Each structure stands twice: as structure tokens, then as C-alpha cells.
């Protein structure tokens, strides 16, 4: 965060933290409680910012209680965090003076797995980002995330999976610090093939061909009589019987004989 702010005095940074219970804005915050002197030789403004950030993260993590046994954890709230980040980007873009341009990017650092319930929220956030030319870049610490892969592909950002957590700072500084145009001149890991196939509603398996309900767009792997989501009734298409062939054959026999 410090290096981003040093790069250009007009750079603005905002940090959001998210869990399965909620989304919290970590920086910039309205209430700063750090008053003590800075001990190391760092620039005072950055030191305050760093300490405040660490304190906020600690508060949020300690503040979340153990979940009740009957509450299912459906993955952390990536969708909600993206929505709030997009609102903030929108407001800062509107506040920019005419003549200046502000290039906005969202960097997501993700440790938890994908939650299926968040699909629609994340897709809508991706399309909103694409329309506003905001690139979504992602650093994934745990297992692969198909949502973030698709997000980076659609919005024009970069997706990176980091296996060695201790080297995280190095990854962040070398890959994500620069804006996207400059990155093309540097040697960065090439993007993987992104799987854009749909998953069927009943089993969750990826499909090559599927059946799509014309009313609500849900995807199924095989024909069924009623759509699960919208209760539309589908008619079974009957096969067309071929009657003409026999009449033609009979005619030929008559002609021959």
C-alpha cells in the first residue's frame, strides 16, 4: 500500500476486508486511534497508515465469533466486497476534475474457497466493472477460483495463483504494482486457458452441450418436464413419422412391374 501511494502523489488507495460475516472498510477510515510516535525511520504518514491498517485487521478478525453449528458457511462474501469497491470507484471517478483521467483497478487477495450462492452477485459485479472499464486483478492463496479467473479474463486484469505465501510481497510488487499498459513490456506469467462452460443445475458438472430454459436461462444436462427455478412446463417433442417413403417405394415397384 505504501509503494502504491509513493508512486504518484495523485494515486489513491482504499482497502476493504471481507469475511463470511461481513465487509469492512479498512482504509481510509474515519476514526484513527493511533497517536503514538513512530519508532522506525519511515515516513510518518505511512507508518501511521500501516499501524492503523494492522490494528483494523486485528479488530475485524478477533471480532468475528465462532459460527454457530447450524449456520452453513457458504464461502466469504466476495460479491459484497466487489459491490462496495465498485460504489467507491464510481464515486471517486465522478469526483475527478474534468480533464484528468483516473484509471481504476480492483485487486482481490483471496484465501477462502468459492461460494456457490455468490454466483449472480459476482457476475453482475463483473459486468458492471467491465462497463466502467475497471479491471479486476486477483491473487489467489488457497485453491483455484473459477469466479476470479473469469472476472480477470472478462475485465482485462491478471489472475495469479500464489503457492508460496512468504513471497507474497514480491509477487505484489513485481506484477501488480504497475498499470496494465506498462505490464506488457515486462515478463509476467502468461494467462491460463479459462473455462467458460456452464455447469448444469442438477449435478454441477461442466457441460459441452446442455438444455437451456427459454424463460429463466437455467442450464440442465438432460430433458426434464418442469423447470426447477421458474416452474415452466416443457412439451416433449414427438418424432416426425416418415410416411412418404413407403408410398414412393410402392410407386417404383408399380412402374417396374
Amino acid at each position, binding site marked *: 500500500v505504501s509503494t502504491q501511494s509513493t508512486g504518484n502523489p495523485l494515486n489513491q488507495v482504499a482497502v476493504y476486508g471481507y469475511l463470511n460475516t*461481513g*465487509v469492512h*472498510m479498512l482504509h481510509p477510515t*474515519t476514526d484513527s486511534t493511533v497517536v503514538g510516535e513512530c519508532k522506525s525511520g519511515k515516513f510518518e504518514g505511512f507508518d501511521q497508515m500501516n499501524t492503523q491498517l494492522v490494528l483494523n485487521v486485528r479488530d475485524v478478525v478477533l471480532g468475528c465469533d465462532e459460527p454457530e453449528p447450524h449456520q452453513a458457511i457458504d464461502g466469504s*462474501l466476495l*460479491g*459484497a*466486497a466487489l*459491490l*462496495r469497491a*465498485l*460504489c*467507491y470507484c*464510481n*464515486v471517486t471517478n*465522478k469526483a475527478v476534475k474534468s480533464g484528468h483521467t483516473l484509471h481504476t483497478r480492483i485487486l482481490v487477495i483471496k484465501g477462502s474457497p468459492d461460494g456457490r450462492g455468490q*454466483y*449472480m*452477485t459476482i*457476475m*453482475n*459485479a*463483473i*459486468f*458492471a466493472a467491465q*462497463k*466502467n472499464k475497471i479491471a479486476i486483478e486477483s491473487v489467489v492463496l488457497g485453491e483455484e477460483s473459477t469466479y476470479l479467473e*473469469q472476472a480477470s479474463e*472478462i475485465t482485462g486484469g491478471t489472475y495469479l495463483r500464489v503457492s508460496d505465501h512468504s513471497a507474497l510481497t514480491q509477487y505484489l510488487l513485481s506484477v501488480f504494482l504497475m498499470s496494465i499498459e506498462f505490464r506488457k513490456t515486462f515478463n509476467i506469467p502468461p494467462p491460463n*486457458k*479459462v*473455462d*467458460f*462452460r*456452464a*455447469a448444469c443445475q442438477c449435478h454441477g458438472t461442466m*457441460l*459441452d*452441450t*446442455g*438444455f*437451456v*430454459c*427459454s*424463460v*429463466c*436461462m437455467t*442450464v*440442465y444436462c438432460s*430433458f*426434464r418436464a418442469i*423447470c426447477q427455478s*421458474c416452474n*415452466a*412446463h*416443457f*412439451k416433449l417433442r414427438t418424432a416426425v413419422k416418415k410416411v412418404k417413403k413407403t408410398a414412393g417405394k410402392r410407386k417404383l415397384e408399380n412402374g417396374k412391374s
Partner: protein
Amino acid sequence: VSTQSTGDSTAASAKREKRRLIQQRLSNVKLGVMRHLFVVLDQSQNMEDTDLKPCRFICLKRLTEGFIMEFYDQNPISQIGLIMGRNGKGYKVSELSSNINKHASIVQQQSGCEGQFSLFNTLQLAHKTLTGMPSYASREVLLIAGSLTSVDPRPIQEIITSMVEGNIRVSVIGLSASVQIFNRVAAATGGSYHVMLDEQHLQELLRFHCTPPTATPTMEPTLVKMGFPPHTSTGALAVCQCHVDEREKCELSTTGFTCPTCKSRYCEVPVECRLCSLTLVCAPHLARSYHHLFPLHLFKEVEMGMGDGRCAGCEGELSAGDGAVSYQCGECLKLFCYTCDLFIHDMLHHCPGCEGS
């Protein structure tokens, strides 16, 4: 119209207009998300009028290109075709397809306004193609007419009856004045008729037609077979089917989308496979239509009392005092400022407060 405390009056009326448009989108109504739309453009002598700068036709061409982009953005699995009406006849310049760039370039190439507009001939041309389309998709015609007259070989009532029989919805945008016959065509077929006031209004009217209309009872729900082709960069060397007719652009390559059933190669999706007629799409294309099917409810206008609050979307300060309003979500009861409210309803279609709890 007050100009003192609420600031300038045009901003306040723009706010009200936007909220009214959002309110018109009802929920729990079946929508025709898969659409086959013919855009009919008037190319008669009236289109050389200069009430839209530089002339009506050039302005309309520009707005139609923008409309095509926006239409495919909101309805990715739909198809558009283009018909021009000039010299008393209809000319189909572009077949129904999902190819955005082709349509945009064809619109750009059109030039020259001559003769008179014929309502019967242009609608009949659209009718011929649309009746061959499957019944689960909506069949629509959008007519943008600048002329006040029409030359027709037969009575208009005939074409109105055949449109109604073919379940085709005709909507008209008039550029000059209200014409009775357009009104009748639109009313009989279940479409809408608007007359534009100025260029910005025309743009808004075009935008209105990007949202899917309510489904007619004749549209049967069907399970449509679709293919989800993987994008390969190391496939077999092949020529893509989209450019096989054009000698300049046709080349061997290993990248592209491969149809799952007949293995033919395409550069872009969505597309209808030329060999096996399978509709090829990506999962994000289907996801783009979800926000029409599950729209976000309108937020309530709430007077801000004393004591400051922060907007739940952007963490900005909510102005307090007389006349200042903030917007409250009915489900999670969080407050939002005007900019966030507009952004949420226009682009995001999800409330950050509801999602975040």
C-alpha cells in the same frame, strides 16, 4: 418546479424521470429474454431534414450503432436484422444474426435518402423472415420513421392482421409528428409508439427498447439445446467458419471455439453453427440476462434528520439538513447517497447492504 432549495430544476426533473423509468420495470412478470429483432430504418426524402444535426439520417445511423452495442450487451443471445425503406420498397441489408461488428459496419455503409417510405413493404419483408423463427423467442420489429406518409400497394389492415397472426410485436419511434397509422399498428400488435422531442430523448427511447419486453402467451417455454464450446489455443489447424466466404480474412489457425457436435471452428461466440444449427454460447452470456429476471427493488426516499450518517456504498458523508434526502433499502434498512443509488440500480442490480450481511 422549484429552483431555490433543491438546486437547479433540470437536475431534479432528471432525477424523477430516472426513478420513474426504474419503477416501470415490474418484477414477477415473465420476460422474453431471447429476442429476434428487425430494425427498420426510414431512408426516405424526409430523413434529409436538418432538425437533428447534421441531418436526420446521419444522426440516426450513429444512434443505431450505439443501440446495437447496448442491445447485445443487455441481450447477448438475441439476434438483430436490418431493413432499410426507400423508394417505396424494403431492402433487407442484414440478415438476423448475433454478429455485432458486421451490423455496425453495414449501418455505417448506408447512404443516400430518396423516394418515399412504404410501411406495407418493409413490414412484409420482416414478416417473411420472422415467421420462420422458433416460437420460444420473441419476434419484434422496431421501426424508426421520419416520414408522415406511406405509399402502399395494399391496405395496411392486411399487414396488421398478418403481424398479429404471426405474433410479431411492432414498436414505432416517430421523428416528426404523431401519425395515426403507426399508432394503430403498434396498438394492434402490442408494441409501443413514441415520438421523439430531441436527440437525447431519441437516445433514451432507443435505450428503452434494449430491455426485454414481457412475454406473450404464444411464446412457449422450451428447453433449447445449446453448446458451450471450449476456447482452445492448441487445437487442430482449421479455417474458421465465420470467415470461410471472405478470401481476405480466411486463414488457417489453431485458436478459436470448437463446436462440440460437428467440430467446426469459430472466432467468436455467440453464434449459430452453420453446419449443425446449434447455438453456441458462453456461460457469462447467459448470466448477462439474469438482472432482467431478478430486478432490484426501488429504494425509499428518506428525509435526513440531524446527525450525520455515512453512505453504506461509498462511505461518503450523507448531507444532512432541509431538503436533503438519502435512499433506504427496504430489506437491510441501510442508507445510500444519490450517486450510489443510481449506480446500484443502473449497473450493479444488487444492494451492497443486503449482500454484506
